[in-house]
């Protein structure tokens, strides 16, 4: 039997992964996607393991997706949210984590407003630590499910023109996507208002433009990011209406895209702001397939990180 080259107990970000590791994750996800199509949508791979969803920042879809992924692998799941935990009593992240470890948990999925929080936990704990979003730093499983969807629909990623549109500055989805897509050989263009898409992003190896019509003209994939009201402490553009008019994907702009350009959005979508309602529901939109694929990708991540011993010697 063949084993994978995967030898990490944690998934902290895309930045540290090799191309082989990314492909291993995507190939494993292909197998797990098929499990969702069976009569019994559950396999015993992580039977007896316990996973904690430690969400210090609100989330519905990512938390639900991780919870369902763990359950389909037969792991037990506990959800901890800030409001219902001792974090409101002043407990530090370190103490919360050590208490969870004392309960013999095997996997901790963490979302935190501070960049680097999962990395801190990974050094502290024996359990597998999975980053479900840390500040504006990384959201690796979102980038992996985006890549999985592109690969599934387009057959490959290398050479494709991918335009990421919208709030890049505050977006961990954008950063993880940029790292992943450039590693796999896509040409990445970032577009949006200059306040949200600064030129410094050219250092990531992508193109930056503030002309949306030019950015979408040759795109094979258009990934729209949500305008994050909650993360913007100052106004980065005059009004929501003006953003929609200047940078939203409306019908006129959509008509000028390539006929096979694919529309993606990590959700939740703001209909009528970054994307026109009809475009979100059209045949070229893969927004709901991204959700289905997210489950398969998260099953693959949990399986690979928690499915072996990952001892330092590596070999059997």
């Amino acid at each position: 039997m063949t084993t994978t080259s995967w030898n990490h107990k944690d998934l902290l970000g895309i930045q540290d992964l090799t191309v082989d590791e990314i492909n291993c994750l995507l190939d494993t996800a292909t197998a797990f996607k098929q499990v969702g199509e069976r009569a019994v949508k559950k396999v015993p791979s992580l039977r007896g393991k316990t996973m904690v969803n430690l969400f210090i920042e609100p989330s519905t879809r990512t938390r639900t997706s991780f919870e369902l992924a763990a359950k389909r692998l037969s792991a037990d799941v506990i959800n901890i949210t800030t409001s219902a935990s001792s974090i409101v009593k002043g407990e530090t992240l370190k103490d919360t984590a050590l208490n969870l470890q004392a309960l013999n948990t095997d996997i901790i999925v963490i979302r935190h407003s501070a960049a680097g929080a999962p990395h801190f936990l990974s050094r502290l704990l024996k359990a597998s630590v999975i980053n479900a979003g840390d500040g504006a730093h990384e959201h690796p499983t979102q980038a992996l499910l985006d890549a999985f969807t592109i690969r599934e629909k387009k057959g490959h990623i290398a050479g494709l023109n991918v335009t990421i549109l919208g709030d890049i500055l505050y977006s961990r989805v954008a950063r993880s996507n940029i790292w992943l897509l450039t590693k796999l050989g896509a040409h990445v263009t970032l577009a949006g208002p200059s306040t949200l898409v600064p030129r410094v992003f050219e250092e990531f190896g992508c193109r930056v433009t503030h002309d949306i019509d030019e950015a979408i003209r040759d795109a094979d994939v258009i990934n729209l990011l949500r305008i994050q009201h909650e993360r913007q402490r100052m106004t980065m553009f005059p009004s929501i209406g003006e953003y929609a008019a200047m940078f939203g994907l409306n019908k006129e702009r959509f008509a000028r895209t390539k006929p096979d350009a694919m529309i993606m959005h990590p959700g939740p979508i703001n209909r009528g702001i970054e994307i026109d309602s009809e475009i979100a529901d059209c045949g070229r939109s893969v927004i709901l397939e991204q959700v289905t694929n997210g489950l398969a990708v998260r099953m693959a991540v949990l399986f690979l990180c928690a499915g072996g011993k990952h001892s330092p010697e590596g070999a059997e």
Partner: protein
Amino acid sequence: MSTAILMDGAALERALTRMAHEIVEHNPEPDSLVFIGIRTHGAPLAQRLATKVGAILKCEFPVGELDISMHRDDLALRNAPPQVGPSNITFDLTNRAVVLVDDVLFTGRTIRAAMDEISDFGRPQRIQLASLIDRGHRELPIRPDYVGKNVPTAAGERVRVRLTEIDGEDEVVIER
């Protein structure tokens, strides 16, 4: 390490033909027969057996592939996770007579995992086991219904089945 040939292409072909006749003999109502091969090498063997049984009975049988990696019982003992692939069973298994096909029968743990997984695709009327090689050393109460060749082995030896579809030629070798 020394290598000895256990079966050449012609012997392998004769064994499969005999197994196909045994399957026909033991399934007087063949309408419900389906063949499921355990990836990787069980899959082409299942296809060949289905073709041979089909040629005898002048009909076609559904053939599926099973990847059992997600159902293994040794995941927590392994250093690196196994490579998992998709299973490909596009038909309901409820009330079917499943012929489960693998290349080498050894501890029986793969077969246990395969039977667990098969039940996720429906409730078969019965499951029969066909294995090209039975090398002994069972760790579970599992026995094959159809065997190509019984090979007494030592625990440390390796039996390798090579098939044209995957390896470019038909051959069974033992590595000591």
